[in-house]
């Protein structure tokens, strides 16, 4: 009954989204206010209906209603309640429902917050979002109905949630990621609305910017959590695998980052217009492409859902309409647009342009690495796979100039910058960076020219430059605590974002260089020495969880003879899904992780254990967090609210 209610709500939502796709656009085409005024209540109604549907599916999982196919295939009566809730989006159908919930949520948010935008523009933006909504509601209802029943022959118990997904990280990873993907739909809608209207002033960029920031913020957090989840759950101690699906989330992130920077130019200088619009289209197109790759079964990955060519065909058709249509519109409309601004070779415009070039080259690398195997196969040249070395090497070459430019960028003025005023500050920055990097390496490790040192140098360069630039700005504002608070939130956001990148670069380089890994065979009481750490296996015992069994190992860890911690590693067996899962034990510190994964039981009795010491691995996620926090600060900048209101009044 409840499930039918949810299904019904979804059908109504499809109908509402159809109306939303037609009337407001028609209204703004004809210049009639009536149909446009419909847009906002429709958007809110759409979200409410989808919430009812989502609530209904949650209830079905909560109450172990195995007459619902989705529940029967992805849950089990023995699953604890919180994993029953996350199982809601553990399957293709449920995750699509989450996807439309978020899409309608963004649509409703635009409706609620776009009060100050010109009416015609509101109609266009919500109308474009309506079209995207129609596509996804249609997909959910036609191709992946989450409310399908197993009646009249329903199973006694469910087939359980994939144990890989039974983890805290998994509770929030997909929602955040989807928030990011779907959030780019708003940037996309802004771009299309601008193309339809033919107006790309700096107001347009200022309106689009906070939405892009919000989407980028969620995507950053989502990707970071996914990486953290892989590290904890997969038991390989890795944090990024260049898996096709990871890449599918990384591409919109890279383009989104480029878009953020390009929007800044369009807002402040009124130029780069065609570029910004293209990036906004590209960011959302890559999100859609990601959805297509994951859900059509074109590529193989640990993440992908069951392959189904019909779903793929639908998504491909949708992709053609949305992306093809928007690129056609772009091609037809962009000719008329001229940029009026002038700038010199050494100016912030050019530096931000090179930022975009590097980010897009990186996107291209990921894109080719992900899709080339497919193209290769379809050309009849046989199956190939492109692995980590390809990506790692190209990213290595891209990061060096990118980080060097990033250190310079914030110091350079718009339009034109003389070289000589910058020489003095940059020689100081370079000196401080070199001293910090070399100093740390000499103290912590033996001096060696390796990737770790390069990472430290680049990271210190970016970080010192960002901090110094911020201090300079504070001093220009008069110094002291008052100036500290006067500095706009978006400037703090930029500083934090760049610091986050510096931290990330250091984390990646140090982890890559100084990680040590050992596969050992241990008996109870046996000790393994590992640099200054020694690990003693003190106990192994049987494990009994609510829906799993297995073994747990207890280890004592000593550093230079002193006990520092106690580690608890598990190897779980989930009988319903017949899956063995590793729950790695991690002792985390800012400077290093100690990581132990329990393996097979061997004769003796003894156990295979995998032990890692990973210096600076936390910095990778810390860097991501800093970037996300920077985006949050930029989002809170007063001018997005204050000025938008003022403009709104003048337009209305």
């Amino acid at each position: 009954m409840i499930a039918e209610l949810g299904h019904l709500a979804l059908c109504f939502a499809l109908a509402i989204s159809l109306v939303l796709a037609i009337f407001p656009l028609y209204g703004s085409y004809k210049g009639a206010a009536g149909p446009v005024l419909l847009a906002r209540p429709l958007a809110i109604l759409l979200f409410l209906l989808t919430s009812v549907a989502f609530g209904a599916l949650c209830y079905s999982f909560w109450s172990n209603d195995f007459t619902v196919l989705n529940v029967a295939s992805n849950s089990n009566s023995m699953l604890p309640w919180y994993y029953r809730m996350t199982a809601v989006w553990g399957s293709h159908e449920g995750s699509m429902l989450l996807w439309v919930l978020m899409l309608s949520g963004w649509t409703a948010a635009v409706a609620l917050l776009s009060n100050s935008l010109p009416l015609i523009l509101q109609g266009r933006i919500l109308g474009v979002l309506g079209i995207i909504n129609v596509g996804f509601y249609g997909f959910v209802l036609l191709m992946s109905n989450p409310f399908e029943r197993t009646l009249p022959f329903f199973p006694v118990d469910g087939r359980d949630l994939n144990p890989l997904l039974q983890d805290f990280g998994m509770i929030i990873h997909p929602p955040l990621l989807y928030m990011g993907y779907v959030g780019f739909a708003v940037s996309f809608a802004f771009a299309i609305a601008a193309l339809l209207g033919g107006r790309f002033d700096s107001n347009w960029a200022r309106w689009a910017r906070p939405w892009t920031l919000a989407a980028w913020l969620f995507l950053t957090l989502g990707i970071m959590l996914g990486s953290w989840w892989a590290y904890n759950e997969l038991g390989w101690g890795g944090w990024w695998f260049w898996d096709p699906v990871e890449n599918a989330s990384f591409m919109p992130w890279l383009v989104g980052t480029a878009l953020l920077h390009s929007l800044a130019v369009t807002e402040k200088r009124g130029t780069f217009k065609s570029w910004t619009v293209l990036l906004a289209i590209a960011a959302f197109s890559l999100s859609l492409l990601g959805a297509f790759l994951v859900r059509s079964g074109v590529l193989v990955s640990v993440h992908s859902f069951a392959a189904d060519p019909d779903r793929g065909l639908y998504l491909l058709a949708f992709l053609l309409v949305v992306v093809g249509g928007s690129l056609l519109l772009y091609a037809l409309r962009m000719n008329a647009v001229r940029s009026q601004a002038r700038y010199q070779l050494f100016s912030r415009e050019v530096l931000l342009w090179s930022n975009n070039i590097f980010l897009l080259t990186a996107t291209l690398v990921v894109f080719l690495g992900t899709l080339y195997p497919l193209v290769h196969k379809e050309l009849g040249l046989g199956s190939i796979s492109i692995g980590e070395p390809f990506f790692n090497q190209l990213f290595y070459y891209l990061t060096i100039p990118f980080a060097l430019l990033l250190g310079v960028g914030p110091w350079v003025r718009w339009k034109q910058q003389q070289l000589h005023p910058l020489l003095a500050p940059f020689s100081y920055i370079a000196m401080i960076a070199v001293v910090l990097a070399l100093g740390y390496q000499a103290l912590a490790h033996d001096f060696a020219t390796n990737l770790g040192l390069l990472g430290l140098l680049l990271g210190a360069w970016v970080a010192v430059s960002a901090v110094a630039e911020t201090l300079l700005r504070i001093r220009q504002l008069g110094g002291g605590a008052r100036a500290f608070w006067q500095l706009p939130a978006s400037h703090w956001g930029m500083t934090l974002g760049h610091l986050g990148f510096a931290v990330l670069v250091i984390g990646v380089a140090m982890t890559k260089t100084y990680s040590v890994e050992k596969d050992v065979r241990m008996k109870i009481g046996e000790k393994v020495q590992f640099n200054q750490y020694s690990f003693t296996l003190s106990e192994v015992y049987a494990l009994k969880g609510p829906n799993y069994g297995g073994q747990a190992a207890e280890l004592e860890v000593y550093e230079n003879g002193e006990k520092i911690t106690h580690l608890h590693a598990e190897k779980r067996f989930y009988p319903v899904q017949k899956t063995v899962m590793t729950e790695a034990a991690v002792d985390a510190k800012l400077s290093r992780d100690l990581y132990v994964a329990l393996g097979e039981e061997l004769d003796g009795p003894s156990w295979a254990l995998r032990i890692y010491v990973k210096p600076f691995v936390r910095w990778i996620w810390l860097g991501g967090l800093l970037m996300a926090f920077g985006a949050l600060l930029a989002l809170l900048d007063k001018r997005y609210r204050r000025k938008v209101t003022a403009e709104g009044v003048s337009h209305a």
Partner: protein
Amino acid sequence: MRKLQFFIPLALFLGLAVFLFSGLFSNPRDHGSALVTQPMPQFSLPNLTEPSRLMTNADLKGKVYLLNVWGTWCATCNAELGFLTTLRQQGIEIIGLYYVQPPEAAFGERFDMTALQQEVSRKLAEQGDPYQFNMVDEKRSLIFDLGVTGAPETFLVDASGIIRHHLVGDINEQNWPALHTQYQALLAPAPAANSTAATDAKNNAGGQGE
């Protein structure tokens, strides 16, 4: 020229779409059902009630049968036993492949054949016994070869030892009629062979392009 440059993104996208389209119809992953039309893997497994007797492919030669993978630990399998028993009463040959739950074997607790025999006979007395006999796959070797992903799963095997159907999940009143038709067709002599192939093709549609 300037007019044309804005069409570049569109052209690139359309080019990509062609590959995505053709990629849809060549499945990169071989599914478990790839075993359909393949011969039954070689096996030699102890009979549950009489462990000294090893059952092999030879014991099943010339028979059309259902190989049902199950375990007493699996709730759905237990629920399925009743329905399977009514099938046996209709003369359907069902062979049990007992799935030994790994932790018992892998985690020090010795695998205990006597305890297993007691548990199984208690369960079968309770729910009904659909099986001609049961084989115990302690090392899960045949289960591995068959690409079993969970329990229950059922394989339909024809008289020449070729797997004709692979069903994931329980057999019930809903899916039995189709499987029954296929079973009957295999029992009947030669002329039915074509219809069997047709059913196979249907079952495989959406799986892989063979």
